[in-house]
């Protein structure tokens, strides 16, 4: 039973690191929108990059997804879902943007 406190502390640590990083990656884009410090285009680019970064932080520290063999299957499924999303959501945006252009909207 003596190992329990250490075990708990050990497993709590990634959540605390993840929380710290997530707060940072949340506060920056909200501040940028609140202060209008950058142009709209630059703000959008920063928001997109920080959102992807925070997604990666959550996957790593909260869902414990890494490149180790234990989560390899999950990574493959994730990549497959990402490919489906790229085709379906990306294709939707492409087609609709093209339609907008052709209809002069």
């Amino acid at each position, binding site marked *: 039973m003596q190992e329990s406190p250490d075990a708990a502390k050990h497993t709590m640590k990634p959540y605390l690191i993840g929380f710290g990083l997530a707060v940072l990656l*949340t506060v920056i884009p*909200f501040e940028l929108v609140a202060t209008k410090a950058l142009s709209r285009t630059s703000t959008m680019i920063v928001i997109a990059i920080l959102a992807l970064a925070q997604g990666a932080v959550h996957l790593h520290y909260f869902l414990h997804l890494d490149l180790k063999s234990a989560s390899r299957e999950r990574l493959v499924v994730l990549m497959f879902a990402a490919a489906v999303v790229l085709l379906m959501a990306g294709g939707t945006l492409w087609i609709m943007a093209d339609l907008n252009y052709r209809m002069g909207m």
Partner: protein
Amino acid sequence: MNDRRTGGPAAEITAEYAKQDAERALGFWIYLMSDAVIFALLFGTYAVMVTRTVGEPSGHALFHLTHTFIETILLLLSSVTFGFATAAVTAGRRNEVLAWLLATFILGTGFIGMELSEFHGMVAQGAGPDRSGFLSSFFTLVGTHGLHVSMGLIWIAILWVQVLVRGLTPFAASRLYRLGLFWHFLDIVWIGIFSVVYLPGLR
């Protein structure tokens, strides 16, 4: 159920259960990824519809930065408290598990409460889902996420009672693990929502 927790046969059942557990986790992960595809398509729909306001208010007039920020922090905190519950499961501490699950439930309820008050405020000022393509896609995307969180809250409540009554059985631990995957996944979807819907709408 009682004989599974005590005595010799329990260890055997536990070992067998652990083997199936990995398969269950992978199956649940596949469900989560298919759910991610649904959300991605709702995001795609929103991105197409966001300019279709047909004279009705746009996001700039309807969203509030502070409101969304507090929602974001509530959900993030709930993800962390669920992580602490998971750590407590590993350490075998039933009361800590119950305490962190309760904290997660309260934070999640706070998030849903804020979302409902936002939706109610929008409908009250005549910006319901029936007013424009933008508002239809907004309510569909954000509402689908809210519905998932609400289901998660019901799931937390059920497992809380299960752990309270039956203790930290291998079955409860296994279910808590998958619930954790679900809960953390919903927080990742929320990153997409504030980054695609609220922040661009307000800038």
